[in-house]
């Protein structure tokens, strides 16, 4: 089986429009959850979110291109550009055929869809804009990346809510490991700040009225975030032979389904995903130095995730550092796995664990070795990143320092 190197990273989120900008905040515990630019009328019950407010679409696309590209697809394309640029890959000839693009998103483009509904149901106008379908489709980001780089291999989208991006990275990892492709651009993107989506999240009563405080006893919900993250994964030998800088390695992937409840988390499913990811990579629990937790900041997730980690790691959990970077970039839903995989790889690379910001009070139900508020230097070799989705779908990646 081929080893899988990471040779490029790209990130757009509330913390910055590049990996370097975002890492500045991640590595110093800066929270990007801020007052919403549009608080709704009537006001949403939550007034904060992690918006990519410094992202200016016209810095990256022509006016004509923007007619076609929804915000989530813009995030996908811009983060892919950064990752590809860092990798130094060009996709001429065989590599164009032997490269995959797998881009996750929970819901695709909601703005065009909501605009269409507004015309139909509010204005009573039956004429919906002709580009509604290509703007809305969840594969708009993947297809844009394919067009931009001339990549002709397997290109598709995974929509498994908050696990979308760990599923995409895991699938790309498997395809390279098995020799189906040489390289892959994998990750995801999400643009959640549309009125319809915000009202729907409001109705679920899981969004914090303040900021998310993962694993803190006084946590009261998640904070929504937007953005995109992309990784260039590459056959290790291919990367080595061309002298590429290898940023890290993906070594294991595990996925499971709770088959328990559509939204309520359970211990068994996440535990299986973590256990299977470790087994897949041949990594023992006590070798894992850092877990980038799903850590949404809801009462149920964080205590359940703690129990699942305890189940898998046993006593080794005491020495494993845990943080939730959602406390800084928010819960980016279909992009979460990718944004957090980038954070995890950077942690391995820099020997620095980004903290759980906004943490106030330890919770006995979350008795993990939480890195709270301040980043921590540590000698890291293996790290894990969890995503657990509505629908009971769990996906865990295990990564190694290069």
């Amino acid at each position, binding site marked *: 089986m081929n080893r899988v190197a990471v040779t490029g990273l790209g990130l757009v989120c509330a913390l910055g429009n590049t990996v370097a900008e975002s890492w500045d905040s991640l590595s110093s515990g800066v929270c990007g959850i801020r007052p919403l630019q549009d608080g709704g009328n009537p006001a949403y019950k939550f007034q904060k979110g992690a918006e990519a407010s410094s992202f200016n679409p016209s810095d990256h696309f*022509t*006016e*004509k291109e923007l*007619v076609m590209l929804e915000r989530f697809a813009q995030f996908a394309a811009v983060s892919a550009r950064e990752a590809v640029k860092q990798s130094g890959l060009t996709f001429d000839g065989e590599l164009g055929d032997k490269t995959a693009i797998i881009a996750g998103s929970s819901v695709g483009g909601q703005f065009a869809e909501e605009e269409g509904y507004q015309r139909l149901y509010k204005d009573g106008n039956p*004429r919906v*804009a*002709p*580009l509604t379908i*290509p703007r809305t489709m969840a594969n708009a980001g993947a297809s844009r990346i394919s067009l931009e780089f001339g990549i002709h291999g397997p290109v598709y989208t995974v929509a498994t809510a908050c696990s979308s991006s760990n599923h995409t990275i895991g699938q790309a990892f498997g395809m390279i490991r098995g020799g189906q492709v040489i390289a892959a651009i994998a990750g995801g993107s999400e643009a959640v700040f549309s009125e319809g989506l915000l009202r729907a999240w409001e109705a679920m009563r899981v969004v914090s009225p303040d900021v998310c405080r993962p694993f803190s006893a006084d946590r009261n919900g998640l904070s929504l975030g937007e953005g995109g993250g992309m990784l260039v994964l590459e056959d290790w030998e291919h990367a080595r032979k061309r002298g590429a800088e290898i940023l890290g390695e993906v070594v294991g992937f595990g996925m499971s389904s709770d088959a328990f409840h559509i939204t309520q988390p359970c211990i068994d499913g996440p535990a299986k995903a973590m256990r299977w990811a470790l087994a897949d990579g041949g990594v023992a629990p006590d070798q894992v130095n850092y877990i980038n937790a799903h850590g949404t900041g809801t009462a149920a997730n964080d205590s359940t995730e703690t129990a699942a980690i305890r189940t898998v790691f046993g006593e080794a959990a005491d020495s494993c550092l845990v943080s939730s970077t959602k406390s800084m970039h928010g819960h980016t839903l279909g992009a979460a796995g990718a944004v957090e995989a980038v954070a995890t790889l950077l942690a391995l690379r820099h020997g620095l664990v980004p903290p759980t910001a906004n943490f106030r009070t330890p919770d006995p139900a979350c008795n993990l070795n939480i890195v709270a508020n301040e980043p921590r230097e540590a000698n890291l070799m293996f790290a894990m990143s969890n995503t657990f989705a509505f629908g009971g779908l769990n996906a865990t990646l295990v990564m190694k320092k290069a």
Partner: protein
Amino acid sequence: MPEIPEPDLAAKVIQVIAQTQRIPAESISLDSTFEQLKIDSLDGINIVFALENEFNISIPDDGVQNLRSVRDTVNGVASLLKQKSEVVPPGVA
């Protein structure tokens, strides 16, 4: 609706194409072909949608497929506007 004089109509159609394509109206003439303006089939349906809104007309699918140039488009819109003006609203005559 009073009939729109030809030159004004052409200018309006060009304006709609320019806005839809995000290009300057000055770069479009009556003799420009869609190929020259790099208007593909998807752009075409966008332009048709905008023209329907602008002139309050309904452009049939088979009419759309025959459009190749700005002149075709202006003539098509003119003929649809003419048809519309010939339909006498009930109670007016």
